[in-house]
């Protein structure tokens, strides 16, 4: 056993017991290459970005939304002030401290240059990373992974806490979809050990050039996960995750990060954002879940956030004006949140196009001033440290750098 593996496994076992001596943890961590982690959160269904990141400084916002606008800060049910012009929905108050401390940034008026207002197509484009091009088979996150296949890549390098691998992670680079970490592995009943070692022996001897190495990865992954006591996990620093599927996904991502299993890209999703009618109370509950999940995650990781970034996205925004059902319909530009130790936070990025009718996209939606690929590209290069991402966004070169990352 070489030193690296000993330290890796040693630290793993101790983390699971929860009383690793500080010096040992430090030594173990030093032995590993510092790996940055990107946690992507997809808000499926198109969140109303204008009630998530509220432009309370815009008169047109209140004119267009007589019954569902979020009031100005300082009034009952009012927005939580960020910078005197934008505020967060009041149920997202848990994130305000991160903004004030400069760890949370927002990119506003961002999205895809494709005009589609179909959930399906817009999600597809945001995940394939090729707006307007339907026949792209793999996702942008997978192409990133593929472009930087690490020498000793962990089986847990890319994990989606979902039942199925999302489009963004589909492709040739290995990526796992695990909806429950505890259910990962071989479930073979009483004599599970014998079955597992038998299968392992069979595949180790397989002639097939793909089955053999893939099976090794799989069985290594099972052992790695077994070394972590999943059931006994207690979030640190008093963090309380929402009990929703989304909240539990973030909690499990935190577990994977803390167990040093080589996680580099994680994916979680949050649904139920398509509020065509009676948006007010519904979005309030959803944003509460959304924000308290991220806040719990950041609290749980504590100093660990230095190497971690959470990036949120949603396929498109919603109409500036409310409709006759106190809801909003499919729109265009939206907001993304970035939270992490290396985020140059405390600022709302992106040129704000305004909400007056003539400033809107097609007279109805928030216009887009930042292509979402500019944000993704910057995260890949400045946060994850990728050098060449030309293969990740084929045919596209970032128009500029936003300076989102320290």
């Amino acid at each position, binding site marked *: 056993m070489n030193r690296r593996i000993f330290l890796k496994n040693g630290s793993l076992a101790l983390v699971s017991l929860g009383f690793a001596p500080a010096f040992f943890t430090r030594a173990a961590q030093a032995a590993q290459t510092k790996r940055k982690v990107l946690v992507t959160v997809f808000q499926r269904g198109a969140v109303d970005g204008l009630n998530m990141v509220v432009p309370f400084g815009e008169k047109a916002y209140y004119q267009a939304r007589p019954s569902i606008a979020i009031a100005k800060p300082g009034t009952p049910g009012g927005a939580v002030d960020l910078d005197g012009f934008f505020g967060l929905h009041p149920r997202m108050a848990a994130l305000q401290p991160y903004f004030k401390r400069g760890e949370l940034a927002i990119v506003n008026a961002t999205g895809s240059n494709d005009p589609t207002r179909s959930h399906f197509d817009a999600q597809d484009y945001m995940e394939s990373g090729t707006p307007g091009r339907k026949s792209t088979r793999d996702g942008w996150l997978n192409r990133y992974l593929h472009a930087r296949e690490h020498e000793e890549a962990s089986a847990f390098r890319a994990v989606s806490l979902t039942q199925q691998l999302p489009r963004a992670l589909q492709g040739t680079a290995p990526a796992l979809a695990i909806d429950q970490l505890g259910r990962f*592995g071989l479930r073979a009943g009483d004599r599970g050990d014998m079955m597992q070692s038998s299968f392992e022996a*069979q595949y180790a001897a397989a002639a097939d050039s793909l089955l053999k190495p893939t099976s090794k990865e799989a069985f290594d992954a099972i052992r790695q996960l077994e070394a972590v006591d999943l059931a006994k996990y207690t979030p640190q620093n008093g963090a309380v995750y929402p*009990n929703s599927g989304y909240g539990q996904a973030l909690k499990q991502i935190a577990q994977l990060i803390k167990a040093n299993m080589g996680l580099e890209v994680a994916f979680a999703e949050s649904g139920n954002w398509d509020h065509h009618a*009676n948006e007010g109370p519904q979005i309030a509950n959803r944003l509460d879940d959304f924000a308290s999940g991220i806040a719990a995650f950041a609290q749980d990781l504590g100093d660990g956030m230095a190497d971690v970034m959470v990036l949120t996205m949603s396929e498109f925004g919603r109409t500036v004006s409310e409709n*006759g059902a106190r809801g909003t319909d499919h729109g265009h530009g939206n907001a993304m949140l970035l939270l992490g130790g290396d985020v140059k936070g405390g600022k709302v990025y992106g040129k704000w196009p305004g909400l007056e009718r003539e400033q809107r996209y097609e007279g109805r939606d928030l216009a887009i001033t930042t292509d979402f690929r500019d944000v993704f590209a910057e995260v890949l290069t400045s946060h994850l440290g990728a050098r060449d991402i030309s293969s990740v966004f084929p045919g596209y070169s970032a128009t500029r750098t936003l300076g989102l990352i320290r």
Partner: protein
Amino acid sequence: MTNYPGVLGRTAGAVVALAMVLLTPIAVPLDAQKATSAVPRTADDATVAHVLNRLGYGPSPGDIARVQQMTVAAYIEEQLHPERIVDAALKARLAAYPTIALSTAELARDYYGPAEEIRRMERRAQANQPTRRAAGTAAQTMAGQATGQMMAGDPAMAGAPQRPEDRNQSPELRAARQKEQQILQDLMQARLVRAIASERQLEEVLVDFWFNHFNVFSGKGQVRVYLTEYEREAIRPYVLGNFRDMLGAVAESPAMLFYLDNFQSVDPKAAQKQADELAARQQQAALRRGRGRVQMAQPTPQGNQTPAERIQQLRSRGLNENYARELMELHTLGVDAGYTQADVIAVARAFTGWTIDRPRDGGSFQFNATMHDNDPKVVLGKTIDAGGKNDGERVLDLLATHPATAKFIVTKLARRFVADEPPASLVDRAAKVFLDTKGDLREVTRAIITSSEFFSAEARLAKVKTPLEFVASAVRASGADLNNPQPLVGALRSLGMPLYGAQPPTGWGDTAEDWVNTGALLNRLNFAVQLSNGQLRGVRVNVRELAPNTSETSRNALVQSLLLGHASQITRDTLAKAESPQQLIALTLGSPEFQKR
């Protein structure tokens, strides 16, 4: 029925085998025995297994002997003429899935419509509720940390992924939704029953191939309502027919028109004109109502637009290139076949007006002349000036007979039937057949599955099974009773190949690389264990028949029946450690040998 023995009942099998022996001289016409055919006159079991693995979803108990008896050549010929196979047992089984025989109009009226109607009503009702709670609840949880309990208290929010339909459903909506979901449920289950139990195995493989070639995704909007008719009427009748006919049926199918957005592709000039006319009508109506009178705000739930919004939408509407691009890149010529963006636009213009009558309510194909751009277009250097719907037809003619299309199509077929990297010699010959026969898919398929490349040693066990092939072949090989295919539908989901669930128009990939990954591999092993242990309710392996005990005799018999004797020494050694017949079967179905075909 206690034991459903896969593809053939023993009696039925004997009858068909006998019939085939008698019919052979008629069933194998002379042209099928041309010099190009490399079908061996006498074949060993391994060769027969190869044929069964490639033309179908692998052998069922008794199949090898049957094909041996009728000869491989006769079996191939039988499979190339599915219309001559009675398949009565399958027909009886499919009666359990009533929706697969219904038209889109019937499905919309009886299955999809009621749920949609309730949804519309509930949206309207919701829209009229006061928004009193919004501000109050916001204030309540400003403090933040109560969230955990709040969510825990709401059962709908706990655990499972949250979809709009999971929450706050009325009992009426839930009942209606069940009917609505039955459309796709029936379709998925019927697809599995056919793969496992149809005697027309080649036809089933080809339906899978061609559906995937012309892929549409059940999760995109109304596609799910159109899927049943799409597979039944645009794909299935043509898999051994003419390529141009299938291409035309797909082009006119509401499923494809919806999936690739062509139904809303409009000549921009025509849309502008419509908007102007509507605006003029609105203005006149306003004048009639009299100036100064305040207009009531119209409620606008999803789908019900105000006239102003409709005008705005019309003005922003125009050409949609999606279908045109994929028609050339994925359906016919293939990527990098020399067409340009100008060709894409010209083809898109040719298909303006190919739309759906009432697209949100299960309507049918309609050519709408007012949406059509009737000016001449140049596609691949040829002028298309037929006018009206014929513009699109001429484009399909042009593409269907193009040499690049021949090459692209036969390469994909050869990849499916022969190897991930199909030999160039085979591709060239089959492409020539495609062009010579003007896209006769029976002859093209025949050229591939009777080729020397198909029967070569390199092609044997060269393909990794797709999840569908793995699941169907496991059930077939083990001769399992199939009373309810639903657990298999779920298994395909966890193996990464949900039926009708490929999102992009490329469909699923067809090489080993596409299907071998860590998570899916473990799930294959888990599937083997579950199937053997009887954990898949409704799919029962007859353990006693397959492996009465764990003795060496049993083990050898199992290696023979499931792996056709093809097992490494290590695999045989691991089988010796099994403590129960169930473990024995699981270790065999989960083995690397069983993942190949």
